[in-house]
């Protein structure tokens, strides 16, 4: 793939550059109170935002195109309101948006991946695909793997550093214990971002206004020939997690409080 090599001929032409897809999900704000409704639904009147990990993905895509020329296409699979998250991506630098509409907030990861694959292929193969490493609502942590597998592309997750070298990409992935794995992948590939990859920019008002004029295409899951697919992982019930009640407070001097605490941890809670 020689997209980075500018031939003499096109030096004075507009650089064609790269095409980057970034997958974004519309999710409830992490600070929102989630109220379970029925067996497996929730009160969706809460504030929704772009999935926080996807912000790193969008930022990296936009920076990469700023350096190399090209375009960033933000793609989301979600309910009609997810159009707001696509617009948010446009406001921070994506060039075009595509929304694949569904009726469900929780779609099987495999279905989401098939929908993403279908739109991406319809739109034309990109050089890179960025995603977040997980969504903060269903916490599935697998859509990027499913997408990569269905498209036959390499994938790396928990990416905290990204660079390009002669046609390939090099990423650093967080492995736990502070270790990082340095991985080289051929292009195109799927890169799942996590915190640390960059500092996402805040959209400025003129950018938000400009984003309203950027092209955004909406389609239905059915338009992609993906009507009803069997679910391999279905959410059958949701339960509110009860917060612990108020703490048992230690009293006295610092020394007394600490001694009392250690005593309770050893003898009541038996965790020391």
């Amino acid at each position, binding site marked *: 793939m020689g997209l980075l090599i500018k031939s003499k001929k096109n030096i004075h032409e507009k650089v064609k550059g790269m095409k980057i897809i970034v997958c974004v999900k519309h999710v409830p704000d*992490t*600070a929102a109170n*989630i109220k*379970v409704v029925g067996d*497996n639904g*929730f009160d969706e009147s809460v504030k929704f935002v772009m999935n*926080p990990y996807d912000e790193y993905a969008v930022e990296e895509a936009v920076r990469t195109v700023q350096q190399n020329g090209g375009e960033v296409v933000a793609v989301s699979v979600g309910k009609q309101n997810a159009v707001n998250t696509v617009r948010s991506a446009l406001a921070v630098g994506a060039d075009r948006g595509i929304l694949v509409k569904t009726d469900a907030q929780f779609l099987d990861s*495999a279905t989401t991946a098939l929908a993403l694959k279908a739109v991406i292929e319809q739109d034309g193969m990109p050089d890179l695909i960025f995603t977040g490493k997980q969504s*903060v*609502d269903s*916490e*599935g*942590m*697998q859509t990027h*793997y*499913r997408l990569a*597998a269905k498209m036959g*592309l*390499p994938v*790396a*997750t928990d990416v905290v550093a990204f660079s390009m070298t002669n046609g390939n990409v090099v990423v*650093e992935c967080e*492995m*736990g*214990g*502070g*270790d*990082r*794995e*340095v*991985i080289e*992948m*051929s292009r195109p*590939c799927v890169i799942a971002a*996590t915190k640390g990859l960059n500092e996402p920019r805040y959209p400025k008002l003129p950018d938000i206004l400009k984003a309203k004029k950027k092209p955004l295409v909406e389609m239905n899951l059915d338009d992609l020939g993906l009507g009803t697919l069997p*679910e*391999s*992982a279905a*959410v*059958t*019930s*949701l*339960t*509110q*997690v009860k*917060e*612990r*009640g108020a*703490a*048992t*407070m230690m009293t006295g001097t610092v*020394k007394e*409080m*600490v001694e009392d*605490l*250690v005593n309770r*941890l*050893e003898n009541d809670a038996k*965790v*020391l």
Partner: protein
Amino acid sequence: MSNIGVLIEMDGQEIKASNYGVLTAACSGGNAVALVFTENGEAIKNDLERFGAGKIVTMSATNPVQKAKLMAAVVKEFNLRALLGLSSARGRDLLARCACILDAPLALDAIQIDLADGMVVKSHFSGKTTAIIQLSGDTLHVGLRPNVIEAVEKPVSAELIPFTAETGDSDGLKILEVKKGGTGTIDLTEAEIIITGGRPMDSAENFKILHACAKVLPGAVGASRAAVDAGFAPHSMQVGQTGKTVSPKLYIGCGLSGSVQHFAGMKTSRVIVGINTDKDAPIFGKCDYGIVGDLFEVVPALTEVLNKNR
């Protein structure tokens, strides 16, 4: 009884202790088959036998793509009904790659599992709700959050089975190197006790009082996002929504306000202690034990008491 695979994670030459709970989960649903990437199966045989692994399948590969292909071949060869593992960085990666090869259902970061019915319980909405997920398909792939299932010994004698299969190339993915974090401390997600510092830590230097305490506990040291963003600690130490999800026996939060996003990463801890100067801090409304006080006095005092007791 069906065969249940367990991907065993090594830490150098040793088995990570958190694998044993996963073996216990496997034994609850069938015959445990351990899958291990190692050159020396003999060395770990005793440990795996102690927790019920009747078969130990050893494999050799370093590239994650090839590892996953081997795992998928084992799933077929041993007709595994499920493949379990730790939902650690490594475990998540390999389970996901293997599930994709087999087009199998996958649930990561599960906190409960019912193999008979193919159901798992996992966190949704950053720990604000739990979801029961019904998995359907041939081989259920499940990554369990470390420490959520207590390991129970179940001595058996195991058969060591070296396994190879054609894995082809690594499909465009190459590991160039592993950069060591340099801390050499216990991995946060594995630690049984964690002591965490928040914004008032005020400098990287001050974290040494937490490290001193962690040494006697013994445990690992974590940080809030406020402390990480201020540069007092690396992101690898961050607990919460955009950091690590941990589930230790004991979590001691020092100078944490008790934000929803921080709790998203640690609310499944068995016991939570809050240390805060503000008696009205939200953390005291959602933890088990509280001390109102300055962490710079309380933490050293705690270290001293623990030292005396040891």
